[in-house]
């Protein structure tokens, strides 16, 4: 796998994670935002595989797509699901 192909796929994954990040930050529903951040984590995990970083891939899959969403969902379940807009 020549590095040019790896860089090309990484560019696509970078754009996917950019889109997921923008959606995660713009969305008012926090649960959807957490879902988008999980998608972004998976895009990064594949990027780590392309960058030949197997150690980080294993750690990041467990943490980025496993523990962060769960902790945040716990936090959202104990507070409010929707972002309050200023008017309330």
């Amino acid at each position, binding site marked *: 796998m020549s*590095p040019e192909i790896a860089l090309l796929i990484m560019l696509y994954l*970078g754009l996917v994670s950019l889109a997921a*990040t923008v959606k*995660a*930050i713009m969305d008012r529903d*926090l649960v959807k935002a957490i879902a988008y951040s999980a998608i972004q984590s998976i895009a990064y995990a594949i990027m780590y595989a392309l960058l*030949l970083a197997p150690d980080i891939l294993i750690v990041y899959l467990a943490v980025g797509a496993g523990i962060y969403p769960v902790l*945040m969902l716990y*936090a959202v379940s104990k507070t409010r699901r929707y972002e309050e807009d200023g008017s309330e």
Partner: protein
Amino acid sequence: MTPTTTLYVLNLAVLLAVALVGVYGVLAKKNIIKKIIALTILGDTVNTIAIYLGYRVKNNPLPPILPYLHPTQQEISVFASRAVDPIPQALVITAIVINLAVTAFLLFLAVKIYQHYGTLDYRRILEKMRR
């Protein structure tokens, strides 16, 4: 600028763009949990940039793990000349652990704030604090 270099720079640009969106999310968003989500995305992006800088743009680079338990001298020197840089990867593992510790603690604080003030919108928290 050879095509590989432009591709390399373009990748760096996209990663920096995600970092910028993360910074925007941390600064501009009002909900505390949304800020924490943006913070984790920002942290992960900076880690990815660190690893990306350690990548070796040469034909078929190797992961930084020696695949033999009894390597010959020649195999070791070939491995050292073709493997990816292991140092950013070791630093990033430490960074992921500390990001996780900070995020877990922040989430606990966010829930405590919600219990005390009844809201997570930090403008309203400021109002309540001033009263």
